[in-house]
């Protein structure tokens, strides 16, 4: 798994909202609200709960892995060629809530190669990482 470990990356987006954690939590966990800003999906703050977020461009499969009401919510976020975990952290501030989204995961070469296999991509994809490394 060294290749996968090397390819693990994180995306972090953080913002303070002028709304209390309880309200932000509802926007994160109630499907009719989540659908308004993220995607339509049967999300629920229940560990082990499986659901899918769908949009016109496709869907991602999710499973809730961590719930700490009004503090922390994490679910897996698996899409085509990407396996990741999205973790929401809510921190109360003097004026509202600091919301942090951290997405950690990887797009393993072998998975990309798997998707590309039918089109005869493996050799090409095998060289891809090397090429990009040289360019940087």
């Amino acid at each position, binding site marked *: 798994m060294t290749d996968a470990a090397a390819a693990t*990356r*994180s*995306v972090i*987006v953080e*913002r303070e*909202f002028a*709304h209390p954690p309880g*309200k*932000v939590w*509802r*926007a994160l966990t109630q499907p009719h*609200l989540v659908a*308004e*800003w*993220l995607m339509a999906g049967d999300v629920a703050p229940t560990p082990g709960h499986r659901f899918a977020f769908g949009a016109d*461009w496709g869907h991602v499969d999710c499973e809730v892995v961590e719930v700490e009401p009004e503090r922390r919510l994490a679910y897996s976020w698996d899409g085509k*060629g*990407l396996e990741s975990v999205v973790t929401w952290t809510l921190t109360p501030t003097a004026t509202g809530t600091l*919301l942090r*989204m951290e*997405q950690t995961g990887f*797009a393993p070469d072998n998975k*990309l190669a798997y998707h590309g296999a039918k*089109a*005869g*991509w493996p050799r*090409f994809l095998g*060289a*891809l*990482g090397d*090429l*990009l490394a*040289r*360019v940087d």
Partner: protein
Amino acid sequence: MIETRDLLFRALADPTRRALFERLCEGGEQSVGALTVPSGISQPAVSKHLAVLRQAGLIAGRHEGRQSYYRAQPAALAPLVDWTGRMTRFWEARFDDLDDVLKRMDQ
């Protein structure tokens, strides 16, 4: 971003174009003539494939006399591999929408 990926996928879906791109990556800048010899297809056909690769941003060309020279632009592949940039933009836009939702919600 999706459109860029579609262009890249389309350009690279063809084995002849993949082979041309790989040769340019490995061998540096080459003329259309030099690329044609080992390709097993006609020069006009090679030129056509090169045009598709250029449209996708995968190669860049220049003219010198009557010859055209092409070189690989492998950085164009980054959108296929680097998901972090795409996801960052995705989440930032979602945060904007979340802010709107929070403003509309009851306390």
